[in-house]
């Protein structure tokens, strides 16, 4: 009896294997959790259902950090996926790895005109004159505002904020009890280097040298620029005055504070739009606005992540990988992705599709990121900093914010962080050169 069972299961197994062999399987690693993860899996399923030759096997590999680290480990072991989602700041490392097949090459081979891409994301992922990755989930930072609170405090909604205006509004929105303890915070921003980077770009400063590492390889960080010093100083003051909630490094805590009406304004990525609206659940009206700037608004860089096709794939695999990429780039998929998450479309013309326009009328918050993108100057500020060892550098910047909140002068905290960051960058650059 047992033997029959074993034999039977072996037959079943080999049949299953044979079936799998008939289709080309593409390994796709991503880092989209929660609502975003559901949307990615939805797209993968739609693609798979439409396919006779390709099966995309998608794997959630943890956070962006986990994803790129698993990839680097995989490169060592010679075991990499066909397609992987890597965050914006991993761009330099991905190019340096020499383990990727630049998207521009694949697109050319398949007669896809890369001029179809929206310029800013294309700019961001163009390194050494070549588009290396498919901008997949492109985001920018937004302010999320509780309009009911704004109205009550007599602050008119607008989409563009100078830092000083934002401060005045946040102070007005703060409610304290008799003892001076804050009952409701004006604003909450998670301690994340990304916001400091974006404040540089939006105020017309580079975050790293050599024009954000776009003219030549970045060799030094530039976050001691006047805009960032002012921003971090502002941050620390606001926390000290009980106007800003110190919710740590977690964006989830910021969203929770907003949804619980414990903070009137929060800074978050546009990617949080769907999740945040779900969390708020219609308790109050939410409006999104552009990210603040110091004196004059330049516009922000894109954030989020892109998809890299890995080198060393067979012709069949590469064809299937491209099949999936081109499916994701179809206007229809782009519209679905945009409206399902809040990330903006990376293909021109998608925003003008009738169903997208309609959805924007219904939920104008989906438009803010697009407007912010459209009004962003296309220059090397908004191209975003390209540097190696960026994940490590981000930690030093976050640490500097925390030091400033604890009482260190902002300029000093950033200067100390710069020493560490420059050393990390230096180590990376000299390791790469060899």
């Amino acid at each position, binding site marked *: 009896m047992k033997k029959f069972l074993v034999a039977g299961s072996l037959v079943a197994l080999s049949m299953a294997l044979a079936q799998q062999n008939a289709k080309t399987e593409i390994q796709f690693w991503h880092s989209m959790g929660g609502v975003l993860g559901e949307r990615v899996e939805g797209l993968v399923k739609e693609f798979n259902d439409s396919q006779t030759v390709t099966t995309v096997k998608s*794997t959630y590999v943890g956070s962006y950090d986990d994803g790129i680290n698993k990839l680097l480990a995989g490169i060592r*072991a010679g075991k990499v996926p066909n397609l992987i989602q890597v965050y914006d700041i991993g761009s330099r490392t991905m190019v340096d790895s020499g383990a990727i097949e630049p998207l521009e090459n694949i697109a050319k081979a398949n007669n896809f005109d890369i001029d179809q891409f929206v310029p800013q994301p294309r700019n961001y992922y163009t390194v050494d004159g070549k588009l290396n990755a498919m901008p997949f989930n492109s985001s920018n930072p937004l302010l999320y505002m509780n309009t009911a609170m704004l109205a009550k405090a007599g602050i008119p909604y607008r989409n563009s904020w100078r830092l000083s205006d934002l401060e005045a509004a946040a102070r007005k929105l703060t409610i304290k009890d008799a003892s001076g303890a804050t009952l409701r915070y004006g604003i909450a921003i998670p301690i994340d280097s990304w916001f400091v980077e974006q404040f540089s770009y939006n105020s017309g400063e580079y975050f790293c040298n050599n024009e954000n590492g776009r003219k030549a390889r970045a060799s030094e960080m530039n976050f001691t620029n006047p805009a960032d010093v002012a921003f971090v100083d502002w941050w620390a003051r606001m926390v000290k005055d009980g106007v800003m909630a110190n919710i740590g490094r977690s964006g989830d805590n910021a969203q*929770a504070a907003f949804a619980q009406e414990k903070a009137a304004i929060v800074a978050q990525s546009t990617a949080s739009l769907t999740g945040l609206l779900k969390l708020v659940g219609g308790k109050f009206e939410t409006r999104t606005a552009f990210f603040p700037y110091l004196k004059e608004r330049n516009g922000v860089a894109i954030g989020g992540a892109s998809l890299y096709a890995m080198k060393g794939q067979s012709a069949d695999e590469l064809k299937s990988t491209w099949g999936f990429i081109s499916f994701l780039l179809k206007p229809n998929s782009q519209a679905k992705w945009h409206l399902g998450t809040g990330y903006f479309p990376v293909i021109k013309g998608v925003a003008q599709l009738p169903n997208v326009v309609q959805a924007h009328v219904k939920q104008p918050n989906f438009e803010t990121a697009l407007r912010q993108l459209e009004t962003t100057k296309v220059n090397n500020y908004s191209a975003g900093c390209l540097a190696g060892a960026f994940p490590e550098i981000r930690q030093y910047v976050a640490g500097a914010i925390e030091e400033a909140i604890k009482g260190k002068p902002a300029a000093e905290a950033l200067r100390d962080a710069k020493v560490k960051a420059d050393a990390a960058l230096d180590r990376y650059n000299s390791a790469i050169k060899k």
Partner: protein
Amino acid sequence: MTQNLEPNQTIKPFNFSKNFKQIPFYLLVSAYAFVIVLPLLTLFSASLRSDADLYAPTFLPPHFTLEPYRLALTSYPLGHYLLNSFLTSSLITLGVVITSSTAGYALARVKLPYRELIFGAIVGLLLVPGEITFLPLYLHVNSLGWLDTYTALIVPFIASPLGIFLMRQFLKSLPQDLFDAAKIDGAGHFRILWHVAIPLASSALGALAALTFLGAWNMYLWPLVTTQSKEMQTAQIAVSNLVSAEGSQWNVVAAGAILVLLPTLLAFLVAQKAFVSGIALGGLKG
């Protein structure tokens, strides 16, 4: 559930004035117990709340709901993760029990050249914590092509210096005549090990098994760096993924964490006596 670490002492009959004096004592034990279980209770409470009630400042959820559990179970194959944990922990435990008995027996009962030297070297390995070797071990396992396989999760841990040390000490402490009798009957070492040593050492082996299983079940760093795919991940890593993926929905994270806690908690409650005596024996000897 009954647990009598000390069978010879009996509980005294109820005496009001004496028990009245014991009130401060009961307050103290209750306070301690409360502090111990409080974080778990808050987690449990969060797991029974809807998104809207998640932050309501009440001890009990305002409206009970099992929705977070449904969400956690539908979006994550928690059963599979738990099965992986169970499989790897069981096989590691089995391996440790076997290698510890054979090596412990050889070092205690077989006349071998350089026996004491080998034993000394193994005792020396006790001082090498896994957290130190994990990096070169990772590179080693990587070069063997084992990343993201059960092999990587199990094989490096099926021989334990602590286990060998414990078994050697235990078998050495047994009276020699038990072994002599078997030898006179003409039994070889394998047979003596199987028919004499292992039955005698069953309590020590049980203790070793309990300790090993607990340690394997709790492994975090190793599966974190060696697994990639959903198919291979363990329950601990599932919790880590839940936190990074569902951080904005803490009720779902809480439900997932409770589900991961449940098997060990139940095992502990059901087999508390075995667990406790096992840990006590193993831990004290170690």
